[in-house]
């Protein structure tokens, strides 16, 4: 044990909180002072560590797994809102450990970005890993999606207990042979829902109905109707009403159920599991609904083509004012090509009220080629948001935004309504 590094780290954490600064600095300090800190703190947990990774849905799925396990009485450590880098985990740990560096929890459920997850599993071998999907996203960081698949295979190989895989994504299901020291559990979709969730190969060019998977799944999403869903669990069909919005979140619920059932083994209280699932609220910016001028305003985070497609499919545009905010900062991805892998036909009936962000004109150009009317373009987000709200009184509003555009939108919204601002 190294109480000194814990104390220094905690002090830096307190200081940077007072300054209102970023969440990763204390993690950096403790990583430098005491590289073994994280491994030691996480090694004593009864149920070990679960890593949640993949291109889309990490934040929401992690939140669901945490709440499902807490509903069964477990004390869960997790990394919240956006700090899905190793350093963010270390920073979050500093807030929770006692002065000797001990963490009082039964399990850690950690969302990790694909590249950082590999760094993390070299330091701490997870007992469980939940691998969601491999879709084209931020190719300027990862090169190509086969490279992303190789990153996930390293997580699978390092896992000691059970690897939970999406059987509908061939790149993820194909990781099973790389699992060395663990068992494999799958989650999946009823064949009737396959076309709703295209994998990367089906995004463009592929035709016809995909062949159903014959891998056995622990949890299958059988039906989706609005916010209601039916899950196939252990041979039974269980209906559930969810507060989460968006079909993509509902497939993630199947992933979270499979993960929680794996951790709990035979001890799962199924009724409580579904009660917890029904109570899960959307994560930050993932179909979150705010109130502005007495009207609902929804924020939909779009980070890559499949996420944008599912976002468009999940929210009916009729009667709703629509704004799209596209930035190209490092966290958003600098290459605008991804906008051309999304179909915007569903917006053509009502058009788009306003397009904003650094790459507003790229987005407006994209919409022009799908014959979608754009009623205004204003690259500056604060001015655009003001005009958007003023221009659509008495109507519900929806903003599709990339990551840094969403941070900017939230900063502006926080001046007029209650919204969590994350720096």
């Amino acid at each position, binding site marked *: 044990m190294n109480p000194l590094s814990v104390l220094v780290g905690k002090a830096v954490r307190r200081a940077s909180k007072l300054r209102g600064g970023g969440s990763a600095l204390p993690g950096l300090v403790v990583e430098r002072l005491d590289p073994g800190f994280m491994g030691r703190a996480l090694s004593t947990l009864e149920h070990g560590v679960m890593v949640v990774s993949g291109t889309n849905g990490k934040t929401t799925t992690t939140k669901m797994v945490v709440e499902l396990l807490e509903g069964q009485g477990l004390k869960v450590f997790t990394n919240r809102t956006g700090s899905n880098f190793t350093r963010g985990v270390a920073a979050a740990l500093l807030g929770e450990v006692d002065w000797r560096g001990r963490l009082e929890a039964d399990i850690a459920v950690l969302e990790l970005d694909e590249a950082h997850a590999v760094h993390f599993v070299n330091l701490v071998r997870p007992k469980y890993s939940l691998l969601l999907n491999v879709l*084209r996203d931020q*190719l*300027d960081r990862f*090169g*190509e*999606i*086969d490279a992303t698949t190789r990153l996930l295979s390293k997580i699978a190989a390092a896992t000691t207990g059970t690897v939970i895989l999406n059987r509908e994504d061939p790149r993820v299901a194909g990781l099973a042979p790389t699992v060395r020291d663990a068992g494999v559990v799958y989650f999946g979709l009823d064949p009737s829902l396959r076309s709703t969730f295209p994998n990367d*190969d089906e995004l*463009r*060019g*592929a035709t016809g109905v995909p062949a159903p998977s014959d891998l056995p799944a622990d949890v299958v999403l059988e039906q989706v109707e609005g916010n209601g869903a039916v899950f196939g669990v252990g041979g039974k069909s269980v209906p559930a009403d969810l507060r989460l919005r968006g079909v993509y979140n509902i497939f993630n619920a199947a992933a979270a159920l499979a993960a929680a059932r794996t951790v709990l083994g035979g001890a799962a209280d199924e009724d409580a599991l579904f009660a917890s699932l029904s109570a899960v609220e959307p994560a930050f910016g993932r179909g979150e609904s705010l109130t502005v001028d007495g009207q609902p305003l929804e924020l939909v985070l779009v980070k890559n083509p499949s996420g944008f497609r599912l976002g468009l499919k999940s929210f009916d545009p009729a009667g709703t004012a629509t704004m799209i905010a596209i930035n*190209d900062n490092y966290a958003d991805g*600098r*290459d*605008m*090509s*991804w*906008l*051309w*892998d999304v179909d915007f036909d569903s917006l053509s009936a009502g058009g788009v009220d306003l397009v904003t962000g*650094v*790459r*507003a*004109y*790229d987005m*407006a*150009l*994209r919409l*022009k*080629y*799908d014959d979608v009317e754009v009623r205004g*373009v204003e*690259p500056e987000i604060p001015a655009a948001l003001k005009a958007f709200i003023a221009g659509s009184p008495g109507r519900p509003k929806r903003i599709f935004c990339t990551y840094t555009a969403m941070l900017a939108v939230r900063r502006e919204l926080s001046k007029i309504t209650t919204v969590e601002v994350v720096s």
Partner: protein
Amino acid sequence: MSKGSIHILQLYPREMNIYGDWGNVLVLKQRLAWHGYDAVISEHNAGDSFPDDADLIIGGGGQDSGQLVIQEDLQAIGPRLRGLAEDGQPMLAICGLYQLFGRFFKTVDGTVIPGIGVLDLETHGGKERLIGNVVATSGEFGEIHGYENHSGQTFLGAGVTPLATVTKGEGNNARDNHEGARHHNVVASYLHGSLLPKNPAIADFLIRTAVERKYGTFEPGEVDDTLADLARRHAGSRPR
């Protein structure tokens, strides 16, 4: 009334479409309509018989695994593509197919993947990827804006000319300042973005050439490129 119909053939859209390559097809289709022509879009996938009536051929980038899948078929249709290119057929080849339109691709470990020799150029695998925004200038098409993401480095032979000269970014390789290649009516480039939306001059060159080859003359329509101009201006001001 339609002034005519142009058949756009997409090469291997399943394997070779890694980032926004559909955007190039969509732009050709829509601009043909705006100019008053119909577009018929079809696909050539591995194992298909190659059509006789394509007017404009377009191919994109793929991952290493995708390139393996199409390799054999591409070799089989290679002589057809070479003949069409020599005959003046307009073609657009981006990234992965740009490389395979050349003579060969030599990987980092020394494996030589044969190309189809439509273009006199060779590509050598590099350890580092060249990634980022690119601005290049061309006498033919003016300023070209796009985004590169490739590890292969391409060097042009005497039988082709560069598409453009890079003013920001790397382009074909880290040594000379060439970006892309031109030969007869073939345009080849590393640039995504997608390339054609923000570079309508290239799109209209391909369209005009295809229409003139088929109908003798091209009668352009009125196309408003204000948004493309604004998107270009903003793209040019972004960091590498």
